């Protein structure tokens, strides 16, 4: 399905990086447009008038917005390296845990930077409970998707980001003792070239931490 694919993203947005990873996993050629969120391009505003956010995928001039909607669209349009399993029940499970990450884990992580003292401890407790859900989901599997990287692995990349942030700030929310399976998964995916290509480059990581601490709400804004 060779055609024109453009992707509006932002270097520090995990949602944007998710779509980037999905594009690379399916080896889809695309043109990338880096958006300055304080000065959004007219085409971004035209393609996503409802939310005015990144990421937006444009396929033959037809825009798709919202990272998970984009990822499902890609999976249905480019059939190589499928992300979602075929079985309806397994699909429901993958979607459930992806939604869990987006609706629960991400907002709690965003809250972390804004809390201190007892509230911070309680937030970390909450994150640990949420991480346990994902740890359990990895039991007996190489990847969240089973034998190969899939839909849920793409969304779970936030765990890699959490690990990187912990290495920089020194505050390790994700401990190897508590979450050995997650750690093994992180090591496994970080060996993949495509995954590394979609991580924030080392030279920008300090900037990224500062950005995240200043503006805790989703960077895809």
């Amino acid at each position, binding site marked *: 399905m060779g055609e024109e694919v453009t992707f509006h993203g932002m270097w520090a947005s995990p949602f944007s990086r998710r779509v980037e990873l999905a594009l690379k996993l399916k080896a889809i050629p695309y043109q990338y447009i880096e958006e300055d969120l304080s000065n959004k391009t007219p085409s971004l505003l035209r393609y996503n008038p409802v939310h005015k956010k990144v990421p937006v995928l444009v396929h033959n001039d037809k825009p798709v917005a919202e990272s*998970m*909607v984009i990822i499902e*669209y890609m999976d*249905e*349009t480019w059939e190589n390296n499928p992300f979602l399993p075929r079985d309806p029940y397994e*699909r*429901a499970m993958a979607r*459930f845990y992806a*939604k869990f990450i987006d609706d629960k884990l991400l907002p709690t992580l965003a809250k972390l930077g804004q809390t201190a003292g007892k509230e911070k401890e309680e937030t970390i407790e909450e994150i640990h409970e949420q991480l346990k859900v994902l740890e359990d989901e990895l039991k007996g599997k190489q990847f969240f998707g089973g034998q190969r990287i899939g839909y849920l692995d793409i969304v779970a990349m936030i765990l890699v980001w959490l690990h990187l942030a912990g290495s920089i700030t020194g505050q390790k929310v994700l401990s190897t003792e508590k979450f050995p399976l997650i750690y093994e998964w992180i090591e496994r995916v970080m060996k993949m070239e495509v995954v590394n290509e979609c991580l924030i480059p080392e030279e920008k990581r300090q900037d990224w931490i500062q950005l995240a601490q200043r503006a805790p709400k989703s960077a895809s804004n």
Partner: protein
Amino acid sequence: MAGELVLLDFWPSPFGMRSRIALAEKGIPYEYREEDLRNKSDLLLQMNPVHKKIPVLIHNGKPVCESVIQVQYIDEVWHDKAPLIPSDPYQRAVARFWVDFIDKKIYELGSKIWKTKGEEQANAKKEFIECLKLLEGELGDKTYFGGESLGYVDVALVPFYSWFYAYEKCGDFSIEAECPKMIAWVKRCMQKESVAKSLPDQEKVYEFILQLKKVFGIE
């Protein structure tokens, strides 16, 4: 394929209504079980340990949680009857986008309308109407969001109609006056048995809200 189907639900939940409509549209028999949310059943806690929420669809003993995931699951398993999700990938993406929009906006704004007063309520009302107008734009001249037949977006949105009367009374405004196209669409949906029998009476929902306000100490 049918097997055993149980829906753990709570009568005023717009999310539960989505699954009720989807199952009814496809003529799939199931057992409806009413949950008392102040005293959740062991089955609910066992089937949805992560969120402990309704609705939960249990198919042959295996739980599917989250209403949008349930509707997609129902559509995929019983794909030959009354398809809800478009077959074209781009149309699907559009439908999913609007369902995501509904989930991000409608419930939360509606909740603010009955829970708050003053400026906070006024802002919620304004934004609520703006969201409905955006949805009216997406509907356009179509009979349903799904075109000639009920689709994913219709199923996701129409349950909130059962709460409109409560929002209007609490917020002292008329949704029909602001969004006549939306109400016209609702009326078309309500002519379908699958929708009409899945939605509770609006007055009953309003009484329920009044009870909640007492419990929460909201005036």
